[in-house]
């Protein structure tokens, strides 16, 4: 999946951003490795990955702060690879917001318009519009130091959208906020995107933010794109082990062999036996193939001891992780290793104490099968 991905079908046609085999080396280290990506007009795309995966470097290259070693970046059909940052017409919200401390809210928002030499009356009209859109009425004369984190965030957004940029870049803008505010700002970001229709590239290491906000997610690791997909597809059909374990919780079963006998598909795990699929899996399955199955904790269900069935295994409870609405229970199963199960409530903490045996039923209907060698 490192090659050009398709344009999101539900949006306007025509691409807003084309990233063509872009590469960035830092000395002998690779920052970004030959990334190609096409982003449609009005699309909300998230670059997701752990720190050091190259997502911020890629964003920096789109903004013009980092010069690519190779490749080109095209925005609205114009090659901007060698264009200075201040000629790019790309809006950006920085992680630290980077509001000008010597200016008030109004002047911060007006800055980009003044740089564009807009007539004063025009500047006032546009600033007023942005202030109304970000619900900042009454704060025009405030110094940015006097604002709360959420208000600063809104000023940073207003300052970036008021210039009507071709693309809006968001560099981990929610990471400085506390949890409640973060949830609220996620909703506001979604709303803003819907209202403005701006092509948006969002950088985060938080998979929750990525899943809830994006049209498409670009998962990156070690400078390379691992998968480009819509959130639901990414969760259900991760392309490889990295994506599977980075997005949500997942159990990786040991490698096994696919078998098809009398129309029944199964996965034979050495030392455990066959696990039966309810139906022949649509992807990843081929008789005789060595695969690894990945299974979400919600598809592993505790069952009463002695319950018989083809997909029931028994292990020993190692720990309970109580999360309020649900509990994650970690079970060590011989031949498989650590398996996590996710159940509603906290009853399991009492019914299956640490050290006690626990029978688990695997629901393989949602299992992800990946090549064992990959």
């Amino acid at each position, binding site marked *: 999946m490192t090659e050009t991905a398709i344009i999101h079908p539900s949006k306007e046609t025509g691409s807003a951003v084309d990233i063509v085999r872009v590469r960035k080396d830092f000395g002998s280290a690779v920052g970004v490795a030959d990334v190609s990506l096409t982003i449609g007009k009005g699309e909300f795309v998230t670059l997701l990955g752990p720190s050091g995966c190259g997502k911020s470097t890629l964003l920096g290259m789109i*903004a*013009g*702060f980092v010069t690519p070693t190779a490749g080109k970046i095209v925005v609205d059909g114009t090659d901007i690879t060698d264009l*200075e*940052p*201040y*000629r*790019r*017409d*790309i*809006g*950006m919200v*920085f*992680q*630290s917001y*980077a*509001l*000008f*401390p*010597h200016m008030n809210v109004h002047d911060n928002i007006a*800055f*980009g318009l003044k*740089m*564009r030499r807009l007539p004063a009356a025009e500047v006032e009209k546009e600033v007023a519009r942005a202030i109304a859109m970000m619900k900042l009425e009454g704060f025009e004369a405030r110094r940015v130091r006097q604002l709360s984190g959420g208000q600063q965030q809104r000023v940073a957004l207003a*300052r*970036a959208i008021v*210039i009507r940029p071709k693309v809006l870049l968001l560099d981990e803008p929610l990471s400085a906020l506390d949890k409640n505010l973060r949830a609220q700002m996620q909703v506001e970001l979604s709303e803003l995107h819907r209202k403005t229709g701006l092509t948006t590239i969002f950088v985060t290491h938080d998979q929750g933010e990525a899943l809830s906000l994006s049209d498409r997610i670009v998962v990156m690791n070690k400078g390379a794109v691992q998968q480009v997909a819509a959130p639901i597809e990414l969760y259900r059909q991760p392309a490889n082990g990295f994506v599977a374990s980075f997005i949500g919780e997942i159990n990786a079963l040991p490698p096994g062999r696919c078998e098809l006998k009398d129309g029944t598909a199964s996965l034979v795990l050495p030392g455990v036996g066959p696990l039966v699929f309810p139906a022949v899996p649509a992807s990843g399955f081929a008789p005789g193939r060595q695969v690894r199955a990945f299974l979400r904790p919600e598809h592993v269900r505790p069952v009463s001891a002695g319950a018989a069935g083809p997909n029931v295994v028994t292990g020993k409870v190692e720990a309970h992780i109580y999360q309020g609405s649900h509990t994650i229970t970690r079970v060590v199963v011989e031949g498989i290793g650590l398996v996590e199960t996710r159940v509603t409530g906290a009853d399991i903490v009492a019914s299956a104490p640490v050290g006690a045996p626990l029978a688990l039923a695997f629901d393989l209907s949602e299992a992800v099968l990946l090549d064992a060698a990959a």
Partner: protein
Amino acid sequence: MRSQKIGSIAFWSLVVALLTYMTLPTIVVLMTSVNPTEILAFPPQGVSFDWYVKAVTYPDFQIAFKNGLIVTACASTLALIVGSAFAWLIHHYEFRGRGLLEGVLWSPLIIPHFTLGFGFLLLGGAFGVQQGYVMIVLAHMVLVMPFVTRAVHVSLANIDPALARAAANLGASPFQVLTRVTLPLVVPGMAGGWLIAAVLSLTEFTASLYVTGSRTQTLPVAMYNYIREYADPTVSAISALLIIATTLIMLVADRTIGLRRVLAIDTH
């Protein structure tokens, strides 16, 4: 509880004793300035402001004060220009010998003023430069340079590097980034550095003693020459005036440009 109370009393007694020790010499001088008789006596035998009148009307002091203002204005301004340039260089670029450059810029802090003044005098002799404005200004400029450089460097270091990027992102050319963002944020630091330099230059004595001539002497040198001949409270009065003036300048500066913040004394 009891031992805690004794400890607390001992602690505060020590604090008060130290503060008294620090300010006592100044207080003694200030008190002698109001002595009505013609001797430097402590404690004073009455209260009179006659010596203040004499201090401000004494021609040598008037000339010396004017000299001092000229020297201070020139030396601090030159130090500001050169020091800001060096601060910019040190802040923005990694280069070989950066550590050495910083060391040289800091050296006036550890080299005795006596040595610097004497050195300038010898150097002037070698190049045929007489004691006078040029030599004083050059000597003072060197003495105050570390403080100006430091103040500007601190202000530059306190600017979030993302601000320049944000400005560029919004369409500001590198020159506009400098004039609209960087300079406005460094100006308070430059003003603070200039003020500290001015106060130091105005009150500098040791180096000035060597590089000033009889007609170009600055106020501290004039005060020294006065007290060698007369032992009346006039010098105490002029000391008091100098202290009051510099205190007022500092207070006004703190109010207007946030002196404590730009000198990184107050980090809030």
